[in-house]
């Protein structure tokens, strides 16, 4: 059993390295894209899509599926890599990321991209939609879960807390929020812009269960997702992460929030990420 678990974790780690590499390639091809925000969430996305969620990429509208909303929509590059990998749509479609006539938009778009459950990009709104989906699943007596991933800056939006309150009121034990706690937002580090800590106490006071983990360690991500699934209250996983994780010069360097690569930067990033893979 332990050996099996170790093998699984190894597999997920390998997958995450591959997704990071492809994320950088895709961001480079797109020109200007949000690389840093996409690298901080990669491991969480890999755990959800390759371990936890009950999904069927061949049948994206399968009624009993689990659902995922990327509420911090700008971090969508790694999500697009994963959706194409899983076969929601051909990988070539990603090459038109952010280009006219493409199906893959600058921010997740449910009207254009198979596998995108809800349109996001204007921050704060995804979690309210997740509440709505979770309520609908309960009414329909479905076992499906709704996962929503938020930025730590994003949760400064007041509407997030309106949704958090609704989730508690409607006892949404099928709703799991994850906060990508990379400690940065657009203009700098969280405590310098609008000090919104402590997180745990805030969510707890709204009646949510709180799990805190290292968002880059599958040994912590997987048990947290399993535990969250059994929670009797809405549950939030606060994942400590590093913005730009995996590329030395992007890590904790907020210039990479959204940035165009020079050729050298691109080659250096690819080199680092492919070395990781060996």
């Amino acid at each position, binding site marked *: 059993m332990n050996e099996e678990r170790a093998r699984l974790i190894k597999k997920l780690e390998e997958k995450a390295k591959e997704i990071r590499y492809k994320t950088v390639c895709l961001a480079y091809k*797109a*020109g*200007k894209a949000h690389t840093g925000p996409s690298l901080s969430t990669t491991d969480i996305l890999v755990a959800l899509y390759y371990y936890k969620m009950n999904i069927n990429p061949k049948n994206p509208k399968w009624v009993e599926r689990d659902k995922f909303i990327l509420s911090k*929509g700008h971090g969508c590059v790694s999500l697009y890599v994963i959706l194409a990998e899983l076969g929601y749509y051909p990988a070539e479609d990603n090459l038109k*990321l*952010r*280009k*006219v*006539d*493409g199906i893959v*938009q*600058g*921010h997740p*778009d449910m009207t*254009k991209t198979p596998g995108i459950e809800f*349109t*996001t*990009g*204007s*921050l*704060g709104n995804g979690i309210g939609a997740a509440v709505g989906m979770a309520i609908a699943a309960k009414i329909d007596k479905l076992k499906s879960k709704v996962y929503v991933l938020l930025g730590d*800056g*994003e949760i*400064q*939006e*007041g509407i997030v807390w309106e949704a958090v309150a609704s989730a508690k009121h409607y006892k949404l034990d099928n709703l799991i929020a994850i906060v990508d706690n990379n400690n940065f*937002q*657009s*203009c700098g580090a969280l405590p310098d*812009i*609008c000090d*919104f800590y402590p997180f745990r106490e805030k969510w707890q006071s709204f009646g949510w269960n709180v799990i805190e983990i290292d968002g880059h360690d599958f040994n912590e991500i997987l048990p947290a997702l399993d535990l969250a699934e059994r929670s009797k209250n809405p549950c939030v996983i606060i994942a400590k992460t590093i913005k730009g994780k995996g590329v030395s010069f992007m890590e904790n360097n907020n210039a990479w929030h959204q940035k165009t690569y020079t050729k050298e930067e691109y080659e250096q990033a690819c080199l680092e990420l492919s070395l990781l893979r060996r």
Partner: protein
Amino acid sequence: MNSCGNTRKAFGEELLNLVQEGEDIIAVCADTRDSMRLDLLAEKFSNRVINVGIAEQNMMMVAAGIASTGKIAFAATYAMLNSMRALEQVRTFVAYPKLNVKIVSGLSGLTGSIEGVTHQCIEDLAIMRSIPNMVVLASADYASTKVIVREAAEYTGPVYIRIGRDDTPDIFDGSYSFEIGKANKLQDGKDLCMISTGLILDHAIKAVKILQNRGFSIRLLEMPSIKPIDKEAIIKAAQDIGKLVTVEEHTILGGLGGAVAEVLTDNIPTRLTRLGINDVFTESGEYIDLLNKYGLSVENIVRQSEKLILE
């Protein structure tokens, strides 16, 4: 002229100038200090820039509160957030009490381009125009942005200003003249009157040149003030020429074209072609690709103008 300038930078620079001259201005933003170039003001006067975090409705109320104490407040974020996310705050708590808040909107029109529909804003002129007490302005380039920001600060009351994102071609220089409620006649002509506003004026100017080369004579008005709008200039164009075309980076419903149509129907019904985005949602894409696809290419402006002239 082939040089380019940035409207967001123009805004940041002029705001700094105004504060340095002693104007009692506080700028409020929502994690948009750097992207709206308030960093220029913050570097020298850190207490004059308030960053409330990612919270646009709060940003607008803080600006309203500041203005209620007699200071000039500037609220600065993206157009879709100023005009939609914080709309009730703008309407009820800024416009209704006529507070001295200047709302400055980057990424207006299609300039949010690659980011997609969520970040573009082709509805703000219509929305803002429908609110009593609002002055609604759009600048066409770097130099005119500076003048308009200064004039807005001088005016007492709520003002909405639409600016862009990336660098855009320079059209004007420091001698740009601006008055709220007044059109700028850039050239006179007798076959058609073209009226444009904001950054797309660049395409309007290029279209006019082509039309002239084809032997047509065009009057070109820049309409930086969408509300109040220069009724006299519109009525005069209807009387003198009798054919008008409006060009705006906005839905054809309720913006510049809508405002011009209202003036014409009320006073002097006249043939008008409204060019803009044809009541559809757009998509992600390079700015120029979007302008081409959604009807604002120079060629389409020429084609539609020619059609109206030859009617």
